[in-house]
């Protein structure tokens, strides 16, 4: 693996509106919490450099609108994602329930090479609040059932687990990226035909 290869990891944060996507992103990147965030319209992103396994990696973290009907816009933003972070609010069971559909929607729209192994990370946010309604166990169970997705309980407000979670995100995204490179020297070219390659991965890519 050449160390000169660009190491830009595109991370998408998804989840119902108001679960704290923007807050998490800002807590991670800017190390601060504000209660002044507005509902995200369209999309925004922040970048941050992290060191993963001695490699400097730039994370480009995309924050999206939470209302599902804005997902039609998602294609433009999801493309080329290396990792997807699904966030729910531990005090709002509904946001937990919709994780499934967020995940499916992402896989449809981003159509990653290898949907089965695409790295997701689940964050149960707002654990600083008292009125918790989704138990740790429930969250973990769901994640286990989905191919052992890493699960973190975070608080963007009090910076609980945020750093740890994003480190994991970066690492998993990087692993994904690395794996892709092993299969093909020209990942970019492959991306053009992401669908085909996802399907015929074993057959096609070995030839390269």
């Amino acid at each position, binding site marked *: 693996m050449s160390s000169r290869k660009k190491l830009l990891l595109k991370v998408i944060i998804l989840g119902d509106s108001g679960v704290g996507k923007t807050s998490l992103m800002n807590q991670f990147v800017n190390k601060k919490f504000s209660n002044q965030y507005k509902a995200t*319209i369209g999309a925004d*992103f922040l970048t941050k450099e992290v060191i993963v396994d001695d490699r400097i990696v730039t994370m480009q973290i995309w924050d999206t609108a939470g209302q599902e009907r804005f997902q039609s816009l998602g294609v433009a933003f999801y493309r080329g994602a290396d990792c997807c972070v699904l966030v729910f609010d531990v005090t709002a069971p509904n946001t937990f329930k919709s994780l499934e559909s967020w995940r499916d929607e992402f896989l449809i729209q981003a159509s990653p090479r290898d949907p089965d192994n695409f790295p997701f990370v689940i964050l149960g946010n707002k654990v600083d609040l008292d009125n918790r309604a989704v138990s740790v166990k429930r969250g973990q169970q769901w994640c286990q059932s989905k191919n052992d997705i890493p699960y973190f309980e975070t608080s963007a407000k009090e910076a609980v687990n945020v750093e740890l979670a994003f480190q994991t995100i970066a690492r998993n995204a990087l692993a994904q990226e690395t794996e892709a490179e092993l299969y093909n020297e020209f990942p970019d070219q492959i991306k053009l035909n992401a669908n085909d390659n996802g399907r015929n991965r074993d057959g096609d890519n070995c030839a390269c």
Partner: protein
Amino acid sequence: MAAQNKVDNDSDEMPAANAPTDPETEQKERLIAAVKKEVKQLMEEAVTRKFVHEDSGGVTTLCGAVEACLGQGLRRRALGLFKTSSTTALLHKIAKHCPEAALVSARVLAAEGTPATRSASGVERRPSAPRPPLCKRGSGSLLAQSPPQSKYLWIRIALFEKQLAKIIEHLVTNATRYYERDALVADPDYGSILSSLLVGPCALEYSKAKPPVTFWTDPPADELVQRHRMSAGTTTPPSVRRPILNFKRSLNASSDDSSSVNTVTGKGTTSAKDYVESLHQNSTATLLYGKNNVRVQPKDAEEPMAGYLSLHQTAVGLVIKWTPNQLMNGYAESESVDKSLLRCHLVHASACQHTCVLCSTKPCTVYRSRCAGPLCVDCVYWAMSLQVQVWEVVYVHVHRSQGSDALILVGQDGVQRPPIHFPKGGHLLSFLSNLETGLLPHGQLDPPLWSQRGAGKVFGRGKNRRRPMPSLSECGESDEVDQDEAAGDYVFRIVNNAIADREAMRHSLLERAVQSPPRTPRRPLASTSTTSSDSSTMSVDCPPSAGFSGLPPITPAPHQPVEQTASIELVCSTMRRQIISRAFYGWLAYCRHLSTVRTHLSGLVHPNIITKEGADSGLTEEIWRSMTDDSGTVNDKNEVYRLVYYGGVQHDIRKEVWPYLLGYYEFGSTTEQRIEQDASCRRQYETTMSEWLCVEAIVRQKDREATAASIARLSEALGKLPPVESNGDSGEVFEDDCSVISDNPPIVTPEPSDNEQRRPDNKPVLSRAPSVDEIDNIDLDSEEKEKDVKVNGETDTSDTREIDSLKDLDDEDDDVHLKSVVENPDMRRESIAEIKRLAEGIVQKSDGRGLLCSVDSANVNLNGVDQRSSVEENGPSPQQHTSVIVTNPSVDLVPSGSPASGGTTANVSPSRSPLGVVREESQSAGASFDTLEPTSDQRPETRSNCVSPASSNGGVYSNELVESFALNLHRIEKDVQRCDRNYPFFTDENLDKLRNIMCTYVWEHLETGYMQGMCDLAAPLLVMMKEEASAHALFTRLMDRARDNFPSGQAMDAHFADMRSLIQILDCELYELMHAHGDYTHFYFCYRWFLLDFKREMLYQDVFAAWEMIWAARHVASEHMVLFIALALLETYRDVILANTMDFTDIIKFFNEMAERHDASAVLSLARDLVLQVQTLIENK
């Protein structure tokens, strides 16, 4: 880099001391100015960043400028630095005397020796290529972007080591030893200026810490704008940073430093990179033919060597190149040699080749002596390589033999080039045919390769090669010089009539054109030279058509002076025609362009231009008053629109004017009419509110259930059993009173409302001990209920209260309310009975546990009767009004934790209006009603108000309806709470108003529902109108247009498409950039702009102005004013965008960071200008 050209020139005419002094000083000025500019840019960069990156483009250009200064007037010959454009040797030379130089020299040697790290960077892509500061993120881009290290290597290293200034100082003080007297460095003034200029850059910190990719993606929008401002101030355009702008400017043949070295001077390229590139198809040269393993026997080689032969069409003519295989792929073969080294060699070699290949073919001694080991070999190979300008060749000899086909080029001077041996198999033929094609239309092979007699077909196969080659005897006798005896030998003459004159022309007239940057091949300009394939002009150019017909050409040898005048005439007439044809095509293109504009854009603006005159100040209060007549009528709507469009509305009267602008008030309406309209509007608003408030209550109820359920589950999971108490109590409750159960729903309501206002406090309570809460509420409710039921009088009192409050609100409403209230008592009795029945039924049917819980809470209420709070009053009345059954079941189920069953029951049992629920809402709603003060004392009244309307509007709510409203409600609340919290206007009270507006609108449009962004649209209206009902009315009008922008509508895509056309026509340069860099011409980055009418992009004051303009523009200039504002935003920052070659992510980041920081008035006025521009475009047919 022009500077380097000069260096070459200087070295050519070395002892140029006798040259006039004026141009000398001028040149020095220029050199120094270049350094100054680069230093300035670098220092600016250092100011905005903490450190400068080593690979920054600024560093490279600075080094280039310094190199140019140092190279000027260098005594190369005396120092043994012949024919080299690099000053590296100079450094090594002075190393003996100058410790700093010694240090740097050592480093340079080390750097040249070390492989690997610099591998990709050995050669600069193109000396003049602007390095876009913002690197692309494409994975492949790193290589392409990687910095030119070996270029100016020593200066670079000296700079990073902070020794550069000292070294130059040393040079300046010892100038006499190294420089001509008139050299820049030797000049007392310029020399010291140069060294002192570099002190600054030498003090900077240079770092390689971050990889260039990430480094350049970082700068925040602020900094970009800032940088742009600084650089915009400089006199010379920062060409390095504005690649696309250069494109335009280059058309004007600007002579700035971007005009580059490798505009071919006829002697070959000066940089190795160019050479490497030139072997391939590239932008400066078209590869016409390429063949490997073509053998050539160079002069000093014993036997023919294989190599790569290629034929290139460049801006100045055809070039034949042959490069030994050892150079082409030798690097790969010799495993020990590192690539970076090889690239270095290329640099050397190109210098060698520059002098050797074309002229004297003797290997360059300088590099031989400098290069150790394999390098020398390379240099030798380079010396062997061939580069021939076809127009220098007069004859092409072809010798065909058994083994191979040989081709010999004979120059004008009669010198033969080494023979080129083609492998068998038709390669020679295809080369010749390519050559002939390449010569067209200005020249041709004589005799033509393709015989006129239909031999072409045969020829094409390449098998029968003789046929197409006409026998020499036919036409060869005229001026054939030497001719081989072999039957397989042919001689072709390269006829090019215009060449000689063209050459003259090029040097005189077209010099500038040729000098302009090579990376944009400009057909029209180049067409005067021999090579262009522009057919339209070509036909004009080729008078010697006789040549084509196979007749012996009459044209004399190109170098005969006799023909000069004639050919100059020819060129002149050619140019004349070209000018005319270009003018014609220009006109044609313009016409087409216009028709495009008309078809695509005419719909975007109004055809008639309404003038601005006198509208600068906008609609001031004075003007507004003067337009209003006695009855409060404003009639001149066009004038109002015009004034508003051009100048906005004075803030004080916005509240009055906006309803007109949004079409809520009719122009020409009287004051009375408007008051009437307001009143009915408010009435309607309240009615609607009462409707959804009922549903909200149900929603709240359900929420509580759900919360309780999940909490229960959670606590179960934790092993606790919280509902124990309630279980115990439940039995009693149940027995006590069924009606109590019915009380529950109202109970629920108070809580949510509380939640809204003091959520933080409430929530924890809720979660910990929900039962307690309920108990309190229920107590009150139940008590009241009893009172109500028993004593009608009590209800009356509440009614009267209601009336009072209503009076405040609206006189007309009173009747309605009263009636409903009056009806209530009767209804209550009935309903209570019904409730009892139902409740019993439910209890029997449903799972005992759930009921017990609820009952038990009710029970508690009864026991601990607290009558003090008026809140309870509310509770009873709602239930009484309607069959609250709906609410009941759910209440029952709450504790049981099975919300689903609750839902179904709700479905079945028609609750006319769960009034109790309404109360709570009304409380918050009431608070927001302007007339009502939200003090706690008045709360009860407010509630009672709500009760009555609710009762009058009783309805059946299906489960779907409740659910969909619940969904919307939650979203609204989430967003309302987050809406402009930093803006002082949005206190809790006003946020409640906003919430009510949202809910009311959504209730009216439940099929579309709430969509994120609506809050943002409503907020400024509320800020302006202060009052809910009218803000709601305006919001409804606003949404009539804006609704389509939301995902459910189609307008957004239309906006994007329109933007695409507009920007294509108004700023194609920007469009090109967007298209080229990840193609973001989908314009998604404008999404928020259009969705919210720029509300998030500007501050409130500016939003007001922008919105007014958008509204007024519908009637004045364009129904799509948003497009033009968007365009104005883009145009405002176009230079920043271009300079940094932003891609999609860059631009999103940029505009997100620039939000609320735009100079709104400038943007708006630019938007108006753009409208006018399009209008004028369309008008001037």
